[in-house]
């Protein structure tokens, strides 16, 4: 699903946020990206969501070489994946329903499907009865769940989340993580960037550690290494 092959990202200001990172995430996996703030987690997510393109190396997402994708095809590419943000990025003037419906409108989904699918997505995060509320009328945890509903409403095969529990207390964090696991159970590949070590430990799931722009993949032993690594 995702393959980084010696991928580097140098920003225009000269800072190299990621240097020669290689790892692979297979379809159906649920993986944590961990590391201190500024270590390069966000850069990895940006490269996956095609908010940035790699300066060097290869980033393959969903069978697509992100460095080579034409700009006009980026919207279609993004519609294939769901993204959850730490600050959830909901539109404050619009109801939960309209917020969740936005990706479907952007994808030109048939209008008669939109109602059904938005309700289904809100139902999955347990907020169907609040469909008409505005985001600010909700608690932080609920807002985060709306963000997740918006990410999954397009039924993506890949779900990525940047610090989805960053602003939540442990109980809410666990709730949100369970939500991600439920999507993973039905076959969605999930990549979560977090610095919440406890949650990662408790989950027993694969962890890719990023420190100073370098990737350490403790769980990689025994797995299929990225091909380049294997050749050495």
């Amino acid at each position, binding site marked *: 699903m995702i393959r980084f092959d010696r991928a580097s990202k140098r920003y225009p200001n000269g800072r190299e946020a990621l240097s020669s990172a290689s790892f692979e995430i297979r379809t159906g996996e649920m993986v944590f990206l961990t590391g201190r703030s500024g270590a390069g987690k*966000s850069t990895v*997510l*940006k490269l996956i*969501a095609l*908010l940035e393109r790699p300066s060097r190396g290869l980033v393959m997402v969903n069978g697509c070489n992100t460095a080579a994708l034409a700009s*006009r095809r980026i*919207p*279609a*590419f*993004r*519609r*294939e994946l769901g*993204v959850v*943000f730490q600050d959830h*990025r909901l*539109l404050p003037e619009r109801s939960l329903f309209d917020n969740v419906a*936005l*990706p479907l*409108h*952007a*994808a*030109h989904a*048939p*209008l008669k499907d939109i109602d059904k699918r938005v309700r289904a997505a809100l139902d999955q995060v347990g907020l169907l009865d609040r469909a008409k509320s505005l985001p600010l009328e909700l608690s932080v945890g609920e807002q985060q769940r709306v963000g997740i509903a*918006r990410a999954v409403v*397009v039924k993506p095969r890949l779900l990525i989340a*940047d610090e989805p529990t960053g602003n939540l207390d442990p109980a809410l964090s666990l709730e949100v993580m369970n939500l991600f696991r439920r999507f993973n159970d039905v076959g969605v590949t999930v990549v979560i960037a977090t610095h919440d070590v406890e949650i990662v430990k408790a989950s027993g799931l694969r962890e890719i550690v990023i420190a100073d722009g370098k990737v350490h993949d403790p769980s990689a032993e025994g797995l299929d290494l990225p091909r380049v690594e294997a050749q050495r």
Partner: protein
Amino acid sequence: MKGWMLRHVQSALFAAGRLARAPMATAFTLLVIAIALTLPSTLGLAIQSLSGITGELSGAVDVTVYFKQDVPLEKARQLATSLKQRSGIARVDLIPADEALKEFRVQSGFGAALDVLEGNPLPHALDVRPKADAADPERMESLRRYLTAWPEVELVQVDSEWVQRLNAILDLLRRLVLGTAVLLGVGVLAVVGNTIRLEIYNRRAEIEVTKLVGGSNAFVRRPFLYTGLFYGMLGALLASGLVWLALYLLDAPVARLASTYGSSFRLLLPGLRELGMLLGTGAVLGIVGAWLAAARHLARIEPRS
């Protein structure tokens, strides 16, 4: 196809809702657009009204043809008859030298002086009246040249200078109005473009999120184009009201002024065709202004996380 229509209706409603939610700002923008459209439209219509009277007056253009002294009356009559066959000629009156002298004697007050002269110093003459629709300057000139070429003709006098002058003035005014219209049209583009630009920056967060979830540039742009369209059309609608009001208020004074010249000249009120053109112009300017702003500024907003 139906879905496509529905989506456009949705974008349009969304844009309309945005305008309605900020009534004061919207009203001021519309007023600026309306004024910019009103000025050239009103002047244009006034000039169109004036062109109407020059048409009416060109019936008054006279061409006088003086024959050479030695041309006999019979020959003059013949030529008059043949001139009548020419296209664009409404009437040809023959003025024999005798009658011309009699008239001159009566009107000039030089009766006694004329008695001293031996014989009649005046030639036979033709009073030629072109048809109203054939009285434009070029055709008058070609008629003059045609008549001058006759060997029997001494002099051709075209009494149309002042009509030509009026036409020239109207031509000049028309160009001025056209120039003003172009300038103010560019002004409308700038006003709409700038309003849309501000709107785009106010809604930056929304645009970023929309792009993040896979909204294409066309999708993000669409509501802004509708906003521009509405600005243009509503501005034009307001402008038609203002044009009508201006002409209505001017009508009575203009009629009074005209009556002192013995004319029944009235200003034309805008018809359906003029209103349609105004609305169409407004719509096109609005949408183009929005497009320019969107093309420039939307591409710059790329999501960051």
